[in-house]
């Protein structure tokens, strides 16, 4: 097997007695777009900072192309970081900011200038090359931060919550721009974010962390369809979790006595719940259809509408069953135009048994 580009091997970081990162291992290949995701305090930023050398692991090893990296000082590494606060040099012009890293490499002034020009052009900030940082908008600062890091033409780019300080409409634009840059440059991107929509929209693989430990690593699709545990299923959002008592049926499928009633799902290929044990079934909200009346096939739950939330053209409907079970369905607007959804109205929520999956025991 070829050596992976970056390897984290049982890496931990303690502050005082507190473990910010506890035993984290994973590898990153050249050219991948990796998102480190989790709630605040989960250790994702510390992990990124250890890759940049800004924090030193308490134990474990970080390797780059098989070489131990732990003792390399941050200024000896080739891992420029785009900071959440941008951390631009406030007393330098845009151009001098972009040239800063090149100057540290003692590139002659004409080449420095040419390279800076190139990257400012590429990121659309050549127009304010001579401006000071305090004369720029948030979006422009973000581009300066990117240009400053990319001008070094590194083999990896680190991003710490790159979009969190931007307005919502800029965020979406920048998101697609990051994806485009990643595709064009072919270098490794490692991006820390707390937002699953950002992570899933941009990354090839997502590393989900909680309390200093990795919860799941996988492609966005995989994580959506096969959450490894309850934390992931809840954190990625948009999932219904039904917990109840399992019963293996004659055809091998599993019936679950849950707060929303008896629902069915296929048994997982290995390690499915045994009869009489407690199991949790995950059903993505966007797989649940709403109808005025049932058809008698698949899973069907009758429930009353509690609230309806509109986000763009997506509608999330929160429902409650007679027995007090809660579930939600996510549909696009046009799909439910003909379904009356007044609050208190009873509707039928339906989904095919194959859309649900059980969390590993």
């Amino acid at each position, binding site marked *: 097997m070829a050596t992976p580009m970056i390897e984290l091997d049982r890496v931990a970081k303690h502050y005082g007695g507190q473990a910010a990162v506890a035993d984290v291992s994973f590898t990153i290949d050249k050219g991948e777009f990796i998102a480190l995701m989790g709630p605040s305090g989960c*250790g994702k*930023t510390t992990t990124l*900072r250890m890759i940049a050398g800004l*924090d*030193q692991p308490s134990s474990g090893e970080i390797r780059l192309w098989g070489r131990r990296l732990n*003792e*390399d*000082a941050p200024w000896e590494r080739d891992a420029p970081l785009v900071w959440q606060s941008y951390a631009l040099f406030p007393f330098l012009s845009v151009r001098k900011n972009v040239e800063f890293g090149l100057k540290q490499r*003692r590139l002659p002034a004409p080449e420095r200038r040419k390279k800076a020009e190139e990257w400012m052009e590429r990121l659309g900030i050549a127009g304010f090359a001579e401006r000071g940082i305090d004369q720029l908008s948030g979006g422009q600062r973000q581009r300066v931060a990117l240009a400053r890091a990319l001008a070094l033409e590194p083999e990896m780019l680190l991003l710490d919550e790159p979009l969190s300080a931007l307005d919502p409409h800029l965020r979406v634009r920048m998101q697609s721009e990051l994806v485009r840059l990643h595709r064009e440059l072919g270098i490794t991107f490692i991006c820390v974010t707390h937002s699953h929509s950002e992570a899933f929209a941009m990354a090839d693989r997502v590393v989900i962390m909680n309390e200093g430990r990795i919860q799941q690593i996988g492609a966005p699709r995989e994580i959506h369809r096969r959450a490894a545990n309850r934390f992931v299923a809840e954190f990625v959002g948009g999932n219904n979790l039904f917990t109840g008592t399992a019963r293996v049926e004659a055809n091998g499928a599993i019936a679950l006595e849950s707060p929303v009633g008896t629902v069915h799902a296929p048994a997982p290929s290995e390690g499915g719940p045994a009869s009489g044990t407690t199991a949790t079934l995950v059903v993505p909200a966007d797989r649940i259809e709403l109808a005025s009346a049932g058809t008698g096939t698949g899973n069907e739950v009758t429930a009353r509408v509690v609230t309806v939330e509109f986000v763009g053209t997506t509608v999330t409907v929160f429902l409650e069953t007679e027995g007090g079970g809660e579930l939600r369905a996510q549909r696009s607007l046009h799909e439910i135009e003909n379904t009356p959804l007044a609050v208190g109205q009873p509707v039928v929520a339906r989904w095919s048994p194959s859309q649900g999956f059980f969390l590993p025991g």
Partner: protein
Amino acid sequence: MTRAPAGGRAPPAGLALPGTSPEGFMSETAPAPASSTAPPATVPSRRATGARFALFWGAPPALWQAAFFLVPLGFLVAMTFWSVKNFRLTPDSTLANWVFILNASFFRNAYVYTFWLSVFTALIASVAAFPAAYTLAYKVSPAARRFMIFMLVVPFFTSYPVRIYSTQIFFSPQGIINSALAPLGLGPLHVLNTPTGTVVGYLVLTLPLVVLLQTFALANVPRTLIEAAHNLGCGRFRTIATVIIPSARIGLIVAGTFAFVLAFGDYVAPTYLGGSKPPTLSILIADQVKSGNNWPRASVVAVMMIVTLMVVMLVMIGLAYGRRKGRA
């Protein structure tokens, strides 16, 4: 995931303690410019680089202040136990200087006089400054306030002896004040060479600082608190007494304490406006050193002054912060 400035590597624990060897510090000075211009041919271990860097910046201030502030003060204390034999200082461990000074009536009188005159000055300065600080804090525009605060900083950095000289001229028998009073049938005022003259000089020294510190203290009282008091029907003077002064207490006490500290240590005002009659502690020190040449005895007076200042500052800090804690 601390973002505190110290989140980086901590320097070795011994950093910047007086014990750090001066040779080590000197050898650090040479590579400084070199390593910032030459490419790192051999990469030093990050820990060593970090420690050297921390030492280069951390050690000099500590070494300087240790060598030229701490050591001289320690030396001063040590010298109180020395003796003078045949006009020569001799290291010793005698209590004779302490016994002599503490029993000398000229010291006791000077101590009591200096202490109470400084307390009096602190009170006068605090009371005299308050209406002005109140005006600066509440009654003028922010731009005017900024300008006046700057003006108050200026005297702090202008030759104090010259200002005392000027004051001396003002109060001299043929000076401006007495020549203005004479036609009115008043005066002449005898201020020079009296304790009053000393207090006037102390006020020249302390008043700008007291106004300044009081203004900061009052400006920091939340406006909403004052407005709330007015809304509750508090009169102007009751608002000042029950809301503003208690809220600004710490700053007001600090201002008064500074006035005391400055007056207690001053040499110029009691000498040139007070006429050294009676002498203050600083005059005793100067006389002992400059003419009497009995340094150990001067050191005893100096140590007594330091101890007094420390006690006063501790008591004032207690007064400023203590009662609030009790009430909370």
